[in-house]
Each structure stands twice: as C-alpha cells, then as structure tokens.
C-alpha cells in the first residue's frame, strides 16, 4: 500500500496536525509494509520540504500557481501526484484547508472518501475507518469502495510521527501550467493577531460562552485566565455569532475539534454541537451559574458560580501557583 500525506503549513513550518496525520499513515501502512510519502505544495516551500523530510520522503511542488491555497489548483495538483505516483491512500489532517480541497481532489479520482477519521482497523484485507456522525453522537465504521481512497484524519486521534534518524529525500516535481488554472481569485485573509497558541494545537484551552457580554470582557477574563495557564482561548458559537470572539476560535461540530489536556469552559451551556468539539479532552473543567447546565454532565470538575466573580479569583490563585512553581 502506498500512502500520500498532504502537508499543511504556513509557508515556513509544518502544522503539528500534519505530523499526527503522518502518524496515522505510518500505522495504516505497517501491516502491509506499505510506503508513506509527504506531498508539500506551495510557493517558496524549501524550508517546509526540508522540515518534512525529517519525518518521511517528500514530493515537493514549488510553483507560482500554488501561492494561495485555492481548491481548483490544489485539487488538480494532488490528483496528478496521486496518479503518477500510483498512491492507494491519500490523507490529510482535518482542517478547513483539507475540507476545502480534499473532496475536490477525491472527486477527480472517483469520490471514495472518508471525513474525520478517528480510528482505523484492518479487517479481511480491507482498511476500515471510524468516522463520527451526528455531531459525534454516533460513530460509523465504514469501508470505502474504489481506489485511490481519500481520508481526512482528526489530528487529536493520532500521536505525532517521530523524526527519522537521518533526513529522507526531497523530490521536486513539476506539473504542466494547466494544472494551476483557476477561476477563483484570492483577495486576502483577515485574522486577529494573537500571541496565544492555536486553539486546535494547545495543551490547555480556556473557552468562553454567552456569559461574556463584550469583546473586552472576553479578553480580560477568558484571555486573562488563558495567559496564566499558557493556554489558547476558545469560544462557543454564541460568542462568535455575537461578534465578541473571532470565528477561528469556535469550538464544536462546525468549528474546531480540540482534545487538549485541559479544557476549561466558562459560561458555556454544553450544547451537543459544542460538546462535539471538545468532549475528547483529557480533563474538562466548567464554571457555570446554572447548576443544571449540561456542561457539568461531561466535566471532570465543576464550580457553580458567576464567571465574572469566579474568573478573577482563579487568575489570582493560579498566578500564585505558577509563581510557586517557577520561583
């Protein structure tokens, strides 16, 4: 079995989720002594390709037509590489990048695709995939018909691949210019600059819900507590809809799926769609003024109280705690 893993990167570094996807690919390849390779796509990607080669052999396509991650050109490029390299399985970490381009690439090869794989098994010579459905209320074990097969993988479900003792090769590849033709034009990206870790990658996440009335309050309380914990900030849909938190912080069925060591939910009710994004966290802590809030049903430890009163107290205590550890 030949497996191709598509890297996701920011132009200079690999995203950690890609390493977990490589971890999945290595596990899936093992029973058949299969081969695993990376595909790095973009413009000016020498550094990323070199970093990726620390883990597995790399196919690199460095082209002006790949400057922006546009689905038309990326899907065609992936489809070309899959064809010429005769890959059986193509994988990428679940993210908006992969969700956008991966099905489009899969469709160019017959549409055998599984989304959000959280577990796999070999049974009777077939690779089966577990995929969450209904916001995680049900897990389906599926087999795909047709080849090649495309899967997106939940990074939190697989351990990151480990570096090789010696770097693997980087094989540059060129594609015909027609591959990069497209009718979508990139205009720009607006994002809130933050010094905090990415919510999907952080070890600790502090999330705020509708309890917070303004962006200033969110920053002061949720952000303040996150900073003493070295944590990322996250949010429920309610706050993103209200314009209080930026959309890239939304955790849930339709936002990011996170599984940190600790998820701290402040003033979040615990709707199924929110739980779908965080219920695999190692530990969940919750503060809510309503003792019957559903979030307490999944929380390892909970505190009933007003977040406006409780959060500053937590910050105070944890600052002392942190100072005790370092000082």
């Amino acid at each position, binding site marked *: 079995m030949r497996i191709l893993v598509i890297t996701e990167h920011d132009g200079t570094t690999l995203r950690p989720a890609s390493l977990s996807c490589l971890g999945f690919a290595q596990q899936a390849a093992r029973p058949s002594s299969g081969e695993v390779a990376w595909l790095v796509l973009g413009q000016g990607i020498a550094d990323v390709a070199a970093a990726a080669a620390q883990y597995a052999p790399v196919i690199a396509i460095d082209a002006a037509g790949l400057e922006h991650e546009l689905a038309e050109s990326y899907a065609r490029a992936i489809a070309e590489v899959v064809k010429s390299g005769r890959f059986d399985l193509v994988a990428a970490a679940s993210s*908006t*990048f992969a*969700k*956008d381009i991966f*099905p*489009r*690439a899969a*469709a160019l090869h*017959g*549409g*055998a695709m*599984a*989304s959000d794989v959280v577990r796999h098994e070999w*049974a009777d010579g077939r690779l089966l995939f577990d995929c*969450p459905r*209904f*916001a*995680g*209320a*049900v897990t*389906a*074990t*599926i087999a*795909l*018909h047709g080849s090649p097969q495309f899967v997106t993988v939940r990074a939190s479900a697989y351990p990151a691949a480990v570096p090789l003792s010696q770097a693997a090769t980087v094989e540059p590849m060129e594609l015909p210019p027609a591959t990069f033709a497209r*009718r*979508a*034009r990139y*205009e*720009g*990206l*607006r*994002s*809130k600059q933050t010094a905090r870790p990415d919510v999907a990658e952080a*070890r600790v996440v502090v999330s705020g819900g509708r309890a917070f009335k303004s962006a200033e309050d969110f920053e002061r309380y949720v952000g303040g507590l996150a900073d003493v*914990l*070295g*944590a990322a900030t996250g949010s429920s849909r309610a706050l993103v809809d209200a314009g209080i938190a930026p*959309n*890239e912080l939304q955790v849930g*069925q*339709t936002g990011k799926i996170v599984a940190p*060591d*600790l998820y*701290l939910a402040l003033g979040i009710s615990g709707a199924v*769609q929110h739980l779908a994004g965080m219920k695999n966290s190692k530990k969940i*802590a919750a503060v809510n003024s309503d003792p019957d809030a559903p979030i*307490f049903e*999944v929380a*390892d*430890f*909970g*505190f*009933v109280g007003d977040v406006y009163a409780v959060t500053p*107290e*937590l910050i105070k205590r*944890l600052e002392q*705690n*942190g100072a*005790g550890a370092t000082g």
Partner: protein
Amino acid sequence: MKILVPTKRVPDTDQKIVASADGLRVETDHIPHVINPFDAIAVEEAVRISERLRDVEVVAVGIGGPEYEQPLRTALAMGAARGIIVQCAKPLDPWNVSRLLKAIVERETPDLVLMGKQAVDDDANQTGQFLAALLDWPQATFASRLEFIGNELRVDRETDHGIETLTLTLPALVTTDLRLNEPRYASMAGIMKARKKPLETIAAGELGVPLEPRVEVIRYRSGDTRRAGERLASLDEFAALIAQAAGIGG
C-alpha cells in the same frame, strides 16, 4: 440569473440520537426531521439575492423519497420559486448525491449552486466540493458573506486562520457556513403560496446516472459518553485541580 439550492432532509440533531442495538442503523424514525440547517441558510441567502437583484430564480432540489415534499415546501415557503424532487428509494452517499446533482445542474444550467457546507447527519462536508469538481466550476466553501460585483461573486470564507476573501467567476459553487445569515421562518402567507408553487418529481433513473456506491457502513455505535465528575464547593480546591490538569505549579 438562476440559483440552484440542493437541500437534505435530516433528523433534528438537538434530539438524542443513538445507534440501534444491533449496530445496523441509527435510530432516527421517531425523531422530527428538518431541512439541514446549513441548507436552510443556503435557501435564505438565495432568496435574499432574489429579493435584492432582478430576475433571479431560486430552484430548490432534494434527493430522496416522497417525504422530501416537506423540506421542499419549506424552501418554497421561504421564497424559492420551484422545487424538484429526485426520487430515489435508497439513501445515497455524498458521491452519488453529487453525481445526481450534476445531472440536475446540466438540465437547469444555473449560474450559482448554493448549498450547505455539511449535513448534520453524516457531517461529511464533501458533496459541494465533489459537485464543483464534477462540473469543473470554481468553488468557495464555508461562506460567511456573499456579494455580487458585476459578473463576479465575492465571498468571505471562514477558515481556521481567519476570514479569507475570494472572487469567483460564474458559474460557481458556494457552500454556506453558519454566520452567512439567519434563516427566516416561513410566514403563513408564504406557506399558502408555497402550496401552489410547482414541485416536479423526476425519477433518479431518468437522469442516466448509474449509482456507484462508495461508502459501505459496516456498523454504527453510539458515541462514548463521559461521566460527570466532582462539583467543587471550594474555589481553592477547584483552582488546584485546574493547576494540576494544566501541569502548572504544585
């Protein structure tokens, strides 16, 4: 301009959903069904475009059994001009849905296909992108804002790293995210009007698309449930547990 809006009928996922004891099905028969929330957003957006611009026809399409009359009438009551049911007895995977939709697009020749980014039953997030590839049309997924500028469509997309803006030439395919709009409730007048709007039924077999199953479900199981833990009365203890789980301090 013509806008085609594919809609899926799904169980209301605010209800408790479990796998059957034998693992062969998901128990959804007893649960009320609704238009997939993301598709309702697509219908709403198409209707708003038709209210804003002149000569815009909104056509809603569903693939399934006669029960699809219900969600399609809802789309008509919200303001779509007509509906199409592609009659098909078996539930289909996203690949075959997108192939049937391609055949509908070829019949209807819309300028824009607007549909939900995912259906909340299988959560696959594939059909729109499959269809865009099959049509070889430009795509913008996860849209949170649409604006026509001349013959082009400017789309804001929600990505993991912020809001990305793309401009597409038409025909194009756009999938909707939650913040694009808030779907209206159909008014009584809208519901009355919808009864008289055309709802065409086409047998899937007539579309000349042989089915190619891609997804075989081996079994379903209900998701893991977590157990409720401790409720702390002391803030000191609560803070200490947080510190421990976060790996800071003592």
